[in-house]
């Protein structure tokens, strides 16, 4: 009998345990969805069961929280940041992986060292910078500080380094210049990693909370995360409205993650592989 299979009573026990844990993990999500589909006055009646089904709460949350606007802002900001991070990372990674230039090690270590600086240590000054530029309440404030990331540079450099030298030479024999090699060989070869970085960047910027609260005061610039806070404060007496808002906000990311599971796993484990 194979060792990675489980039989008999142990199997039943394992299923029971898994099922129980699955219920525990999914319970908060279940409660949200059930609550979001009930009318406001019925939230406390049978809270566990999906009775009195309505989409009214969802639409009201959408309107009250200006969630359409918030979703658009989040999407706009995250897509911009993601595209920029991927491009700037690929460019810098190429320089570090394939070009010879004086002081390369020093420059690389300097780039890498920025990973040690937590976002939280820089935000006060960054917010003052935004103030002095009059960028408070603008897309510029939400995006520009995040257009590059040392994490992305490092991740892509690592995969570029795995491309055999002969591949580079073959490309130059075939007539490709440096940029030709980058876009036609190195980038397509690194597609899985670049995909992982794309998803990782998107999620990180989509989930940002602290920075948007610091540089936006106008609800017009709410992202979904700060929009939830606004909704929570505005509708403190209407819990199911806030719950519905949470569902609306969480839904797009669930869809994205189900579609890109593999990239997600690669992105999350990128740091673990090369310990």
């Amino acid at each position, binding site marked *: 009998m194979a060792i990675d299979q489980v039989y008999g009573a142990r199997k039943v026990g394992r299923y029971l345990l898994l099922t129980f844990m699955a219920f525990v993990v999914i319970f908060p999500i279940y409660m949200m969805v059930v609550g979001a589909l009930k009318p406001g006055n019925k939230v406390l009646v049978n809270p566990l069961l999906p009775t009195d089904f309505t989409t009214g709460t969802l639409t009201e949350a959408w309107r009250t929280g200006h969630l359409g606007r918030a979703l658009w802002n989040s999407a706009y900001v995250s897509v911009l940041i993601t595209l920029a991070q991927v491009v700037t990372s690929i460019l810098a990674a190429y320089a570090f992986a394939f070009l010879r230039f004086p002081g390369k090690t020093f420059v690389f270590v300097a780039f890498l060292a920025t990973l040690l600086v937590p976002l939280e240590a820089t935000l006060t000054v960054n917010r003052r910078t935004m103030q002095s530029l009059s960028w408070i309440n603008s897309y510029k404030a939400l995006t520009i500080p995040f257009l590059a990331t040392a994490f992305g540079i490092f991740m892509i450099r690592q995969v570029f380094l795995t491309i*055999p030298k*002969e*591949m580079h*030479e*073959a490309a*130059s*024999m*075939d*007539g*490709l*210049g440096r940029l*030709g090699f980058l876009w036609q*060989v190195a980038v*397509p*070869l690194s*597609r899985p990693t670049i995909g992982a970085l794309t998803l990782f960047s998107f999620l990180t910027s989509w989930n940002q909370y602290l920075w948007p609260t610091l540089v936006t005061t106008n609800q017009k610039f709410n992202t979904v995360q700060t929009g939830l806070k606004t909704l929570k404060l505005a509708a403190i007496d209407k819990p199911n409205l806030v719950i519905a808002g949470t569902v609306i906000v969480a839904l797009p990311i669930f869809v994205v993650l189900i579609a890109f599971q593999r990239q997600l796993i690669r992105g999350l484990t990128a740091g673990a592989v090369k310990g």
Partner: protein
Amino acid sequence: MAQVRLQNITKQFDGVTAVEDINLDIADREFMILLGPSGCGKSTLLRIIAGLEDPTEGEVYIGDTMVNNVMPKQRDVAMVFQSYALYPHKSVQDNIEFPLKVRKVPKAQRAAAAIEAATSLGLGEYLDRKPGALSGGQRQRVALARAIVRNPAVFCMDEPLSNLDAKLRGETRAELIALHRRLNSTFVYVTHDQVEAMTMGTRIAVMSRGHLEQIGTPQEVYDKPSSVFVAQFVGMPPMNILPAGSLETGTHLVGVRPEHLRISPDQPLSLQVQLVEQLGHEVHITGSVGDRRVVIRQDSAAVMPAVGSVVQVGAAENGRHRFDAVTEQRIAE
């Protein structure tokens, strides 16, 4: 015209000399083999021709043009790498087409060229596959096709057969010879395998420690090795080198190929037999003369000495090669 001329080529890597003062003329349409053990500089020389390395000193000519400052892609040189260096994300056809695509050859034309090159190498049915789905031999052909499709003046090949199994290697050798005849262009081929060198080359350049030891046709290199090194590197089993004064009086070393050693009671040297290897069509007899290991190659029909016995061996005058005991260079007759 695509002769290749190397003039006083020296290449150093971080102060370590890889090749030193090499002069080599490769004629148009020649199949030139660069032969030598690993680390002898043969690959460096090939890469200098291809433009993948800049020589520290000296000049490279392809045709009549000095190409030191010409980028690899403009040299009209194609290269087949030991690892093949196929693009794993492209199909076989896209791999073969790629050099033409980069050179902006119209789509229909390059597809036709790629299919022709692929078909000529028996790859016709694999055009849509990715390299990962091919066998080693097939990948090797794709690498060849990618070189052929450009119709280059010079083909550079860096140990292209070393990743194939023995049977496939034999078959591919024959195909490469046919290919050379068909394409009518200049081949420069790096190998450490003397069988490949002997069977395929029109000429062989034997290298050792960054220097050219000998340049000549396979027959010349075999019959008149210019040094002890060449004598022992070319030929299998290698030439026996006997110490001065053993086979004949004099101060030089005497080399005798295993097939030129004869066993007969009237011969001068006593050989203690240690090993008798029956190979079917021939027999190798290994033993020692004094402290020297000596190998004799015989027809399998001949009488076999017993292991442990002592036999008398010697060689006729035309089987003897004489080398200077100090410089190990051949002494002219």
